[in-house]
């Protein structure tokens, strides 16, 4: 998106480069993934596809790890496979398009692993990254707190350096998967609160959940509106972390978490969460659907195509070592709008009453699931308002 003339500067910050070209190699990989999925997902209840990357299946993750499809771009010495960002992108989008249950390793592969790779000690890398790449190690994100959602700098959880490590006190909330995760990356204060620099004095820690649960960390379930347990409250009461739990540099927490959030927002999981519903709708409508349906399906398809191009461009920029945080925010915002519009547009093509109750057809169940979850897509990983504020800053407005 190159703007022209004297007014160009504002939008240059939001320029997208051309996405990396596909190659016989990427397309062969795509074929391989499709064959894997055809085999692995054979006979599965199709309505499970609506769970997208929230679907958790450790054995599926282990199989993906065995194929070399987790930690794909990481160095081989850490269990990675030194493949390109575009190759990784191919695997991700194929998984999402099929609604594969990738939730067990998703966070670790997307952001925790790269964070450790970038900021961790050699020992942290060697200990953890190979286990992630094998699909055997899941992560949760210890960021939000009761009074600190969008306003991450308001976090009050505090780690104090003591003999033998760090003593942590505070409460994290909305921690997805904390009850199942092997590790949490904890964002908290290690220095004094400064009104001059709200981002100073924060650090990240690598928390071994099994150890920590014996040591002052309590996980309390928060039941969601579907009656399901994904969220947790995580209470840290005099939790003693070993000295080597520190991830990266003390005081660099804000910088590290910002980079992590850019990764959290950058992938195709931010526009493909409702894709399986589109597939199911196409199945239900058939080729002779009325014109109204064709227009609606075509519109969603056109939007997906444009977004996929932008999303692959972000992947290319990551590969080239650029910092596409703004572009990722923009794609996530557009993508979340599309994911939500997909649900709203498709429901109007059918006379049905959505329900997740057993016994209903896949389309009814998937609509039910997505109607209840899609409103969260523009909250998780950065709210719509926060993302748009970032974009506005990129345009020079703030």
């Amino acid at each position, binding site marked *: *998106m*190159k*703007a*022209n*003339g004297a*007014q*160009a500067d*504002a*939008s240059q910050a939001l320029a*997208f*480069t*051309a996405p*990396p*070209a596909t190659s016989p190699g990427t397309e062969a990989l*795509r074929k391989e993934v499709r064959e894997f999925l055809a085999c692995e997902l054979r006979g599965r209840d199709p309505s499970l596809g609506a769970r997208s990357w929230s679907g958790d299946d450790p054995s599926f993750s282990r199989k993906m790890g065995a194929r070399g499809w987790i930690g794909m771009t990481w160095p081989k010495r850490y269990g990675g496979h030194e493949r390109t960002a575009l190759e990784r992108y191919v695997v991700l*989008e194929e998984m999402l*398009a*099929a609604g594969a249950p990738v939730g067990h390793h998703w966070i670790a592969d997307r952001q925790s692993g790269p964070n450790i790779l970038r900021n961790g000690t050699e020992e942290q890398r060697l200990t953890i990254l190979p286990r992630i790449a094998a699909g055997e190690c899941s992560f949760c994100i210890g960021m939000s707190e009761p009074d600190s959602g969008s306003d991450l700098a308001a976090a009050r959880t505090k780690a104090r350096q003591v003999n033998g490590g760090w003593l942590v006190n505070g409460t994290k909330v909305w921690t997805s998967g904390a009850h199942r995760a092997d590790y949490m990356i904890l964002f908290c204060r290690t220095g004094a609160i400064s009104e001059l620099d709200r981002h100073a004095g924060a650090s990240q820690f690598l928390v071994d959940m099994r150890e920590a649960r014996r040591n002052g960390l309590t996980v309390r379930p928060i039941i969601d509106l579907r009656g399901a347990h994904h969220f947790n409250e995580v209470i840290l009461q005099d939790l003693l972390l070993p000295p080597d739990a520190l991830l990266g540099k003390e005081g660099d927490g804000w910088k590290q978490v910002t980079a992590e959030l850019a990764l959290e927002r950058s992938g195709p999981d931010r526009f493909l969460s409702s*894709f399986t519903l*589109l*597939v*199911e709708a*196409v*199945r239900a*409508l058939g*080729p002779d659907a009325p*014109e109204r*349906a*064709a*227009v*609606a*399906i*075509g*519109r969603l*398809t*056109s*939007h*997906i*195509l*444009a*977004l*996929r*191009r*932008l999303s692959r461009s972000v992947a290319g920029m990551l590969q080239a070592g650029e910092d596409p945080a703004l*572009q990722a925010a*923009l*794609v996530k*915002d*557009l993508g979340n709008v599309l994911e939500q519009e997909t649900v709203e547009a498709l429901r109007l093509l059918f006379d049905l009453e959505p329900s997740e109750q057993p016994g209903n057809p896949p389309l009814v169940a998937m609509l039910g699931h997505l109607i209840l979850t899609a409103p969260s897509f523009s909250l998780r990983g950065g709210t719509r*308002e926060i*993302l*748009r*504020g970032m*974009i*506005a800053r*990129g*345009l*020079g*407005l*703030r």
Partner: protein
Amino acid sequence: MAIARPTGESALRVDDGLKFIEGTGKLTPLFAPVEYGIECRRRGKSRQTEDMDDQLADGAERLFAAHAGKDVLHAAERGGFPEGLWRAVTEAGFAAALLPEEAGGFGTTTAEAARILQIAAAHAAPIPLGETMLAGWLIARAGLPVPPGALTLAPVRKGDKLTLRRLGGRWRLSGSASRIPWARHAAAIAVLAEADDEPRLVLLRGGGFTATPDLNLAGEPRDMITVDAQIEPDDVAHAPQGFGKAELRAAGAAIRTAQIAGALSRVLAMSAAYAQTRVQFGRPIAKFQAIQQNLAVLAGHCAAAMAASDMAAEALRGRSSPFFVGAAKARAGESAGIAAGLAHQLHGAIGFTQEYGLHHLTKRLWSWREEFGNEAEWNASVGRAALAAGPEGLWPALTAQ
């Protein structure tokens, strides 16, 4: 060249579309200050190539900045043709950007041609640049010599047709066609004519038609042409292989998609700049969160349209299905309307004045989104293809390009 019947209106294929960069060797510079050969361009999307793109873009940017100023735009709205601008564009080789080398082209890629069109549109350049590019390409593909001057295409509306009949050893073209872009200023029109046997490409030269003036919302000529003319045999050829009315519509849609993306990028830049200048309630309106959120939405539509434009250009280059061109036009067309509305909302009354330049862009957006098929038409076509692909075929279809 093998000739085949077009595959019919519903099968939108531009299979062996706008790709013709077959030659090698040094070329006349596309725009005087920019010197580069075709070799480096062929290596694909290397960093070096992107630098070349930037040089081309900078040259185009300078040209339009110099020749498509406010006075030129206002004069064009009052009915004049910007001869100076057109001359500069022609001399820079932009009008020949899609021609094969043997027809006087420069081996430009479709992506580069789209880039030039974006920049021209960002300046609201009131000239038939896209039409001349496309008509020239069509004429050359049919094996006819490309005449100098402004060119355009006919017919462009679904119901219209121009009929070619053989009378003895001669040809006669007759009929009328509405909304022909820039017809009154065209040296010749590339007519995709209906003939008894198969579609023919007719080079209809000035004097062979009358143009009844009509305009689009931006004051760009969209004339009704009436033809009842004898055509020289040298000006008739078989239509390029597989190129029928549907393919013409898709190619026109790709041109308009690039233009929409270009105009939108300028609308965004103007809006961001204006928000930082305009003060209300004691501070620049850029400081109001509502304005910021709206500008972020505008930026999203701009990015989406730019992606759509790239997708359309890529689709025309390769062997891809016009599925992608249709999706691109629909996506960009949707953004055009939303973004124009947001920009006017942000600008307030000033944006509605003749004096302030925003309307040159927004009126084009409101026109171009309809021309060569609006969102409903293309989404229906894309949706039909998606439904035909079926649940198992949809994702493979989306990832084919």
